[in-house]
């Protein structure tokens, strides 16, 4: 659509984190991200693993501009997030970033198909070469088929199984063809077959010049990444 370049350039930085620190005060002060450095280039599939509660999700939210770092610098597609205004940050999120949240969050009043159309329509708002209704429908159909929920297009989210909902969340993040995919435990609730399919889909992002930053506690899926890190005491350690 828009996010990926017409001419694919690999190895140029898509996102960079320089000495990023984030602390919370919940009773006591906790510091889940404590001086993280990371450069994520086009073509990268990076996995970050670690036990629950260590700060992996926080790191993804920082990169996605949903959280503000206390210090350090984060840039996405050469745009430094610190100091950027709310409107531009939202546009950046819409056109450059795709989120797969750990928790399944869908628009409950919209059908499976409408959830995807809604996401595409929002991105359409910010782009010059807008997708036509026909293109949107074709794209929705392709992603739903690919993730095995093509026959559930008119279903409401609550009528799906947990695994099907998870796949819908993945489809929503990928259908806009973002430059950077932030995936928080994307294989949760999935059997091996569909987990494998999701990972394959994620791999198509770096293949077209984008990048994936995936958080997982599952060693098996972490192995599919070309760069692997473990999060420990608020910093990333290469594995």
């Amino acid at each position, binding site marked *: 659509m828009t996010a990926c370049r017409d001419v694919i350039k690999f190895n140029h930085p898509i996102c960079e984190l320089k000495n990023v620190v984030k602390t919370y005060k919940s009773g006591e002060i906790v510091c889940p991200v404590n001086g993280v450095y990371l450069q994520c280039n086009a073509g990268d599939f990076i996995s970050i693993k670690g036990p629950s509660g260590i700060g992996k*999700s926080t790191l993804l*939210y920082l990169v996605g501009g949903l959280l503000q770092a206390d210090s350090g610098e984060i840039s996405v597609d050469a745009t430094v997030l610190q100091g950027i205004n709310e409107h531009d940050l939202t546009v950046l999120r819409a056109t450059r970033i795709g989120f797969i*949240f750990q928790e399944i*969050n869908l628009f409950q*009043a919209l059908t499976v198909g409408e959830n995807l159309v809604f*996401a595409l329509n929002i991105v359409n708002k910010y782009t010059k070469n807008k997708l036509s209704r026909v293109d949107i429908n074709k794209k929705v159909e392709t992603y739903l088929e690919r993730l095995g929920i093509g026959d559930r297009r008119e279903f409401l989210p609550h009528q799906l199984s947990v695994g099907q909902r998870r796949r819908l969340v993945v489809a929503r993040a990928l259908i806009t063809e973002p430059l950077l995919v932030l995936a928080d435990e994307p294989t949760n609730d999935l059997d091996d077959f569909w987990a494998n399919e999701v990972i394959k889909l994620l791999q198509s992002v770096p293949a077209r010049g984008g990048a994936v930053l995936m958080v997982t506690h599952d060693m098996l899926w972490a192995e599919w990444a070309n760069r692997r890190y473990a999060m420990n005491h608020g910093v990333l350690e290469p594995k």
Partner: protein
Amino acid sequence: MGKFAWKNISKRKGQSLLTILITSLTVMVFVMIFAFYTNFRQGVILSQERLGADILVLPNEVSTDVYTTLYTAEPNNIYMPVEVLDSIKKVEGVALASPQLFIQTLNASCCAVDSETRIIAFETDTDFVLRPWFDESNIDFLADDEIVIGCNVPAYLGNRVGILGDVFRIVGTMGPTGTGMDETYFMNMDVAKRLATTNENLKEILPNIDPQAVYSAILIKVQNGYNIGDVAANIGKADLNVTIVTTDEVVTNIKTQMSMIGQVMILFWILLLVVTVLALIGRFTVLAQARKKEMGILRAIGGQKSDVFKWILFEASLLASIGGLLGSILGVFAVGPLIDLLKQGFAFSMLALNSELIVESLLLGICMAILLGGLAALYPAYKSATLAPQEVIMRGEIC
């Protein structure tokens, strides 16, 4: 956002119905108050316009119940000597003076009309009050066996009706006045006097009254250039033992009563409005809370703050509009029986609801509902729009 808001409403029926119910009840009460008050006001204006006379002269005994005499259909057998008319005609400033005689039908098996209904008899030569009404109905002349009926009088046996033993032909129906005239029979003075003299049952109701020698009311038109109050004072000086009422005075008194009732209604209405806005703010806050996660998703996938604001405002306005439409329709349906009920207990002039007022009430109800909904949704919409996306997505998820 419109389609999205509609989907949210239609897919969450239980919550939506509660909000619609609150709105529709408020709008229903509002529409009822509005329609009732407007109808009441229109009735008074119409009465003023159509009363015709500048001054009414009634027997002294009526003084405490002048409104009942003028505005209800209750039979009111009050009389004064016919000589009063001659005296009044001599008073300076009196242009026209026309007498009327009030008699009534009886609850008697011999009569076709089976309830007590007022009959107003008038002189065709001098009448200037009823004439315009008859003209509207294309009635040129009233023969001895002909009567005209008020718009709410039921006709018996097609166009014939039996009154006090005689059969009369109904030659016309008067337009609505909102007064007791709507439930009255109108006939010639001579005929009425003959009936009152010969009917034995009526004689019992009017003992010691010689119908040939009395009138019930004298309606006066003041000459141009004369002050109504001055002419009324001149009549008073003639010491005729009568009650003199200027129609301005009647209408002013009714308007004063109307204004007081209106103030009380407005007070209740404002209270109702405040309670409803608070209730709706509560409803819309709950609505926004229930969509918090989805707002977070919307922001995360590229929705602006304004999109969240519009979403909540649109959804609230849509709910309020539906409630408004329902409430307006219910209100319009309910106000008719309310007016009928109040007509029985108050000596006020009220008309039947007209289509113009119905449309006006409907539109006003819907507009009020949208305004009310929009107003009540502003705060929850603003709060929702200013929430940081991570706050709504990540709560319980972060770590």
